[in-house]
């Protein structure tokens, strides 16, 4: 992974990286490649990906009912800025 790709991924992930961080990730990735090479050694022909420990049918169907309510004040209590019951952010349309 080159440094431009690292920066592009960081932008997609919505954070910035310092030059030092980019260099560190770049260096670490080189050794990570060796580690990831161990994955390629395993024959996975005709093997399905495993996405959860157990593949059991979902049996816990339930009626939709309201049983966990939080108030508007609780929903907004952690917002940085709020106004008239809404989270306030900078204007999108100017």
């Amino acid at each position: 992974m080159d440094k431009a790709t690292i920066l592009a991924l960081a932008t997609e992930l919505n954070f910035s990286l310092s030059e030092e961080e980019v260099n560190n990730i770049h260096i670490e990735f080189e050794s990570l490649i060796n580690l990831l090479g161990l994955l390629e050694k395993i024959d996975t022909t005709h093997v399905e990906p495993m996405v959860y420990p157990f593949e059991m049918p979902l049996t816990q169907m339930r009626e939709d009912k309201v049983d966990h309510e939080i108030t508007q004040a609780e929903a907004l209590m952690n917002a940085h800025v709020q106004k008239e019951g809404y989270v306030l952010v900078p204007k999108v349309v100017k």
Partner: protein
Amino acid sequence: MDKTTSILKLKEIQASTNACVTIIENDEKTHEGLLSNIPVALKDNVITKGILTTGGSKLLSNYIPPYSATIVHKIKQAGGVIVAKTSLDELGMGGTGTASFNGIVRNPHDLTRQAGGSSSGSAVVVAAKAVDYAIGSDTGDSVRKPASFVGVVGTKPTYGRISRYGIIPYASSLDHVGYFTSNVTQAALMCDVLSGVDPLDQTTLPVCPTNTLETLNDNVSGKVFGIFEDVVNAVNDEETLKNFEAVCNALVKKGAILKSISMDEDLLRACLPTYYIIANCEATANHSNLTGVNFGLTQDGEDVEDIMTKTRTVGFGPLIRKRFVIGSYGLKDENQEKLFRQAQKVRRVVVDEFTKMLNECDGLIAPATSSCAPLLEGANTNVLSNTHLIAENYMVISNFSGTPSITIPSLPVKGLPNGINITCKVEDEATMFKLALAVESCVKELL
């Protein structure tokens, strides 16, 4: 131990170990039950209504949740008293206790050494005898490894045995709630308290809560302990090996049968990279909600995009940002088949082999870690060695497979704690606690 004694001890050890994010002095018993008046500490990724819950991240360092995790209600209904929220590696990522926004967590047995992670603080508060019960979470080995390094019992029941509703996630297909206790009997009790189906967590097992405490005994006559031979072979610390052999010999004297069991070495060496890819890819997606718009340490910005970027830049530590970059790399269209899907396929191959191994015995046993806790500074790791890839990281297989797994303190190495791990078949916590109790009893006899 009562609440007052517990809080005094928590305050006493805080300066040296940094085990807690918050010490809670005003919680009281609300019900009678198995935990009546017993102090319990929670890893700070357990959501607690009205109490700061940081997830070990600066981004959440001002977050006061409007609800509580299901396990908090269960602890309260059993009579428990919450006394602390404990330090963790940021968002549960990390195995050293050095990656929390609030500083390094230190091993109470030797302050120059790691406590292990990510459930560092919870391990430490039990080791320091400030509480007998502390909740953790275990995605790779985040309960069972620190348990080994600080000398306490660390339990990770079957995947889905304990509700994860209200636990800040790391990697959903690997995340388990786990916990630390001072002994195996307490571990069985805690499993009975916390287990059970939860309509708020569709991944909980649709079975009754466990009832392991009532039938718990250490009679292992005729029980087959599968010695995880590859792990033993990857340990290069003579004292760890000598201790393990002594415990195994003591188990034989109790009537247990030892059976050597192995897995393909290439497969074992592939476990850590498999974990690394799956966990980082899942984490990248899971934490996309940490934007700073609705909650968190919001930074001012010119527009919503700018707020998110500035908040996530200031709020996440360098380790997290690195892991997200790697996770995102693994999820890119051109890498997904080669990395993420390949890791998921290797996971299945490993689990199939591991299941066969478990079918040959009542439980697999091996040293939990290759030696005592590493030093905080100057620890040197050869990342491609079998000691690192197998002996230090094999416990991740229980996260792949969802199998119940427990670390019990063994005999000391260099005068410091070191654990033994036992893993059993899915949903067979009863056998796991029985085998663990026998190990605990053997260690007591040998000390």
